[in-house]
């Protein structure tokens, strides 16, 4: 019988990616509800020494697949290795980060073992009571409690919730007739677990029958720090400037804030029309519609055309001198104040916090 929750751990140049730790934390919560164990699958080359850390964050066991063909990510060797784990171990659930690597690998694994895969999930539930609580407090189903109460509370399938239609609707997906139940999970959504260096677990090498011939593409070049074309619709975090930034130089502190948050800079129409910033960064009716997890509106009053382009943001922080402007009315957190004083200090505070949180 299929059992246990497997997390496919992502590393890049030997560095474990944060999303994988988030997944171990989430898997531990699910495992507590289902009475299962969390097993991490670590793939790469010369990465054995990273396994301890996965135990410290909550995995009961780490399967280590260490092979030179896994040094850089390419699809086929990784898919072959994860498929072998699934065939040999028969997991109940397999989770991947919804990163560019996870979303390249997971669909092929699901295809190869013939099971379902839910993309880019933002919430996972086994326990129906917790799921009902979520539906009643955080979704439009709050208005239809009878529909929520009608759910079968003995259901032990994984309920995988994700946004669709550009974030306009949410859907919960199940995979009842095939195993494992698989999902990719959006980075930055699940809570980071606490590290406990006293936690013990099993570290087991796993032989996936890999060879260098499994690589069916040739990597000619690895390019780092490549200057990419900006697509603000892809950004998870946007620091956006309006009239209040005052001029082209006013975007510099916004850019620094965006950099420490791993986000992008965007703008209301005035910044673009005044030539302060590039056109491809404009949010709004004539610009782009964005749905970031966080939108920080700096000195943007919030014309209706601008709001139309960003009201789908998950969390909105507005910094503005004018407390009566429309942006303040839709913001989750409105700060009445001077962005020129607040933004640089915020950047410094985030840097200090991040230093204190380094793995």
């Amino acid at each position: 019988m299929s059992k246990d929750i497997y997390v496919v751990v992502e590393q890049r140049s030997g560095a474990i990616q944060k999303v994988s730790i988030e997944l171990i934390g989430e898997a531990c919560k699910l495992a507590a509800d289902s009475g299962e164990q969390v097993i991490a699958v670590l793939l790469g080359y010369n990465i054995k020494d990273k396994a301890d850390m996965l135990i410290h964050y909550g995995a009961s066991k780490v399967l280590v697949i260490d092979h030179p063909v896994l040094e850089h990510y390419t699809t086929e060797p990784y898919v072959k290795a994860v498929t072998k784990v699934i065939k040999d171990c028969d997991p109940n659930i397999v989770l991947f980060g919804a990163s560019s690597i996870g979303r390249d690998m997971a669909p092929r694994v699901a295809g190869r073992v013939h099971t379902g895969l839910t993309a880019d999930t933002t919430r996972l539930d086994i326990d129906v009571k917790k799921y009902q609580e979520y539906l009643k407090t955080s979704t439009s189903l709050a208005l239809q409690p009878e529909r929520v109460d009608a759910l079968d509370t003995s259901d032990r399938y994984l309920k995988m919730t994700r946004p669709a239609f550009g974030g306009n609707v949410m859907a919960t997906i199940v995979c009842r007739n095939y195993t494992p139940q698989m999902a990719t999970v959006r980075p930055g959504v699940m809570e980071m677990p606490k590290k406990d260096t006293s936690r013990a677990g099993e570290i087991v090498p796993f032989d996936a029958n890999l060879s260098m011939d499994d690589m069916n593409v040739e990597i000619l070049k690895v390019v780092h720090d490549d200057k990419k074309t900006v697509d603000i619709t892809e950004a998870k975090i946007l620091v956006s400037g309006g009239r209040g930034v005052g001029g082209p130089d006013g975007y510099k502190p916004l850019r620094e804030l965006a950099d420490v948050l791993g986000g992008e800079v965007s703008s209301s129409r005035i910044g673009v029309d005044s030539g302060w910033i590039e056109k491809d960064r404009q949010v709004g009716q004539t610009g782009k519609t964005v749905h970031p997890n966080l939108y920080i509106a700096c000195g943007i009053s919030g014309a209706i055309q601008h709001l139309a382009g960003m009201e789908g943001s998950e969390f909105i922080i507005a910094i503005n001198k004018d407390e009566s402007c429309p942006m303040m009315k839709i913001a989750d957190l409105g700060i009445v104040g001077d962005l020129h004083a607040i933004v640089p200090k915020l950047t410094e505070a985030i840097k200090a916090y991040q230093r204190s949180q380094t793995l």
Partner: protein
Amino acid sequence: MKIVVCIKQVPDTAEVKLDPKTGTLIRDGVPSIINHDDRAGLEAALQLRERVGGTVTVVCMGPPQADVALREALAMGADDAYLLSAREFGGSDTYATATIIATALKKIGFDLVITGRQAIDGDTAQVGPQIGEQLRLPQVSYAEELDVDGDYIFVKRQFEDSAHVLKVKMPCLVTALSELCEPRYMSVRGIVDAYEKTVTVWGFDDLKNDLNPEWIGLKGSPTNVFQSFGKKMRDPGTLLKDLTADQAVEAIMEKLIERHII
């Protein structure tokens, strides 16, 4: 060289609105478009054909109305078009969709398959790789540059923090980012020609010899929608005034930490 481009007709999600009462989608009057990434993939295919010769075939699975999307692709310059449309195909998830499209692709034949990275309605980015899997093709997803030399393609593939330049022997599959190419407009001549060309429609019977009916459609899909709902309407937020800059920073930091943004 025979290039096949898979396209999807999608509702323009920027135009989709939610009924604030029921949390359901209001799709009436929402225009249907060719998915952005797919259109970029089509443009890349047309440019490759202009450089090295060959043909560009477009394939779309969808309802009969998706004919419009294929006509548009023909008007941009595609050579021929296939619409995969049948009641049996309805309700397919990514696995089932990929199964159907892969079966059609086997019948059509190809050297290079191009799909968009992801569709703006489903946002799964799974159908491209799963077509690749069904056909056992090497794949390169997130292509931002694409070139061909002899039997090989050269692709620059984007990750969050880096890019790989890859060399892959055809046949293979590439998923395109919108950034790959700026799509051309339809030409007047192209539009006229598009309506003189034939869009080949394949239903279940045309593919059934190679298609397991248990693996397609709503019943054959491993995943099913359990619930769908809207996000909760925005609660009125917190408004803070008369703060010093440090107090303001503190208030913001608290929210960023609480929401696991940092």
